[in-house]
């Protein structure tokens, strides 16, 4: 299933990219026809499209995403390898924020339904959901870096450099997860088995975590896969605004450069990564919800 989806993505991406009118070297710069022909020959663009497709597939099987069209001698793999640490670091920290702050905030809000804690958390979370990440990032950059000089405006040399990108990146999903955790836990708290747990004389903490959160986590875990994907796409603008040399920045640059192999390579890399995340989420899901196993068996 995963492999099939990935294959479809690769195919779709490949043909989408090749559907762009004109070759990668015809646009923008005026090249002498013989140079263009030479370039086409060098990158195998003179071959029929199905041959290009097959060799691209072959490349992917050996984890080779081909050469960059814009930076001679640079391979897409190199670009990803170079950008990955930055993107992975900020992405991981953002994910950590989303989970480690979002879920507890949702719990606090749910347990204090309609009290000031709930109202405050939900007001902030609604703001977080409504304000686009790039707007949040820009405003934060202006206030904290330019006006108050609390953090550096760009770069990750200092730990403080991480604060704004991570905050801007996680803002939306932190709020989203907080809202989801709240509604999910509220729903679970109203379930009959929670009354049963109380009627059995269990400790409130046992009731909340063993019976409540375990069930409330199920819908939260399902969205964590897409959250990872969206943190990644979110990193496009965040890395641009904070001038971080991550994959997202390469991606946006490759778009404005019309560097098709890079666009294609990074897309496929992202898709593969997302597949992996979804797989992990599915496994986690099975651990949490025994009803799924039965469905798989039968």
């Amino acid at each position, binding site marked *: 299933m995963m492999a099939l989806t990935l294959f479809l993505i690769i195919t779709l991406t490949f043909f989408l990219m090749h559907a762009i009118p004109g070759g990668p070297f015809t646009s923008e710069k005026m090249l002498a026809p013989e140079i263009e022909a030479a370039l086409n020959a060098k990158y195998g663009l003179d071959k029929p499209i199905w041959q290009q497709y097959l060799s691209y597939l072959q490349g992917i099987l050996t984890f080779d995403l081909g050469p960059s069209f814009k930076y001679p001698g640079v391979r897409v793999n190199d670009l990803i390898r170079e950008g990955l640490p930055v993107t992975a670091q900020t992405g991981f920290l953002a994910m950590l924020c989303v989970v480690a702050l979002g879920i507890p905030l949702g719990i606090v809000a749910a347990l204090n339904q309609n009290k000031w804690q709930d109202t405050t958390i939900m007001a902030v979370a609604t703001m977080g959901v409504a304000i686009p990440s790039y707007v949040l990032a820009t405003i934060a950059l202006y206030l904290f870096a330019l006006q108050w000089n609390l953090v550096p405006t760009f770069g990750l040399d200092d730990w403080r450099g991480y604060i704004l990108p991570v905050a801007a990146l996680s803002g939306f999903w932190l709020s989203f997860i907080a809202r989801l955790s709240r509604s999910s836990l509220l729903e679970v708290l109203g379930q009959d088995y929670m009354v049963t747990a109380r009627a*059995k*004389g*269990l400790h409130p903490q*046992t009731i909340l975590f*063993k019976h409540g959160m375990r069930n409330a986590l199920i819908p939260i875990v399902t969205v964590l896969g897409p959250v990872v994907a969206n943190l990644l796409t979110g990193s496009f603008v965040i890395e641009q605004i904070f001038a971080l040399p991550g994959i997202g920045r390469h991606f946006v640059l490759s778009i404005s450069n019309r560097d098709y192999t890079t666009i294609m390579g990074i897309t496929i890399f992202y898709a593969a990564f997302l597949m992996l995340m979804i797989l992990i989420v599915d496994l986690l899901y099975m651990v949490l919800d025994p*009803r799924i196993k039965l469905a798989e068996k039968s």
Partner: protein
Amino acid sequence: MSSAPLLKVDNLTTHFHTSRGDVQAVRGVSFDVKPGEILGIVGESGSGKSITCLSVLGLLKANGEVVDGSADFEGKQLTGLSDKDLRAIRGDDIAMIFQDPMTSLNPTLTVGEQLIETIVAHKPVSRGEARKRALELFELVKIPSAASRLDNYPHEFSGGMRQRVMIAMALTCDPKLLIADEPTTALDVTIQRQILLLLKDLQEKLGMAIILITHDLGVIAEVADRILVMYGGMVMETGDVYDVFESPQHPYTTGLLDSIPDVRSHKKERLTPIPGSPPDMLRPPEGCPFAPRCPHAMQQCLEAMPPLFERPNAKPTVHEARCWLHHDDAPDSLKAIFKAPEAANG
């Protein structure tokens, strides 16, 4: 009666605070449960029967509050007890089973775990011992191949089996009182009977008392010793099952009895539904809550709440009914609507 009551509920009053005002779910309910007896509480949904029991155990939702009255369990005041002390009683001395075994069991934990955690919460035993106890209980409630079923999840059981699991869970600590809140309503008719007989059987074997909440008078007739008829958050009639069924002393009870089919009777009778719907508990009527639907309602019924009148009884249990027609001043012509109770002692 000689034995002291196990549970004595006195003037229990429970309100739910909502944005539209207070819902007066339970309005001054008093009753007691003696050791080893089965008390049936009957009433329509919304009559306050479940809320009464949840109030006793302090299991009300966050917006619910016991505003008046008391519940006394073996000399201990349950109302006003700290959550910690209440927890020690819940699941141990007083256990509860619920209507829908599908939703009342946690879907993400094995049934064994759900039993074991209850045992461990109340008894100083290891998990291994608790598991052994759980197995015993599964056998006690007659779950086939009990040992292998402990590690199953609730969704792997049928409805009847799930309710057996619930019962086993309630019995973990040999409770003195079991509150069964409509334990058979969500089940198939054939399964209903099995579960009911199992409860009766267990009650005899273990000597516990049971409060059986139901809207099904047939269930009460089958197993209960005493009956409490509730309407609009109040007790309408109470007495020995025999007395109440033979000579109901409240128009509501009469109505309930008329609205169930009697398979034993060969007469072609029409079932008579009770017209109207239960009162809005946000603004309960001043007088008798049943008056708006009562075929015999009088001016007096709308204006004042009738007290519980003691009625003659054939069985040695007090028979009481909340109806103005039992007042001394009530015209005899009207009193005749009730079948005269057969008095045991003349």
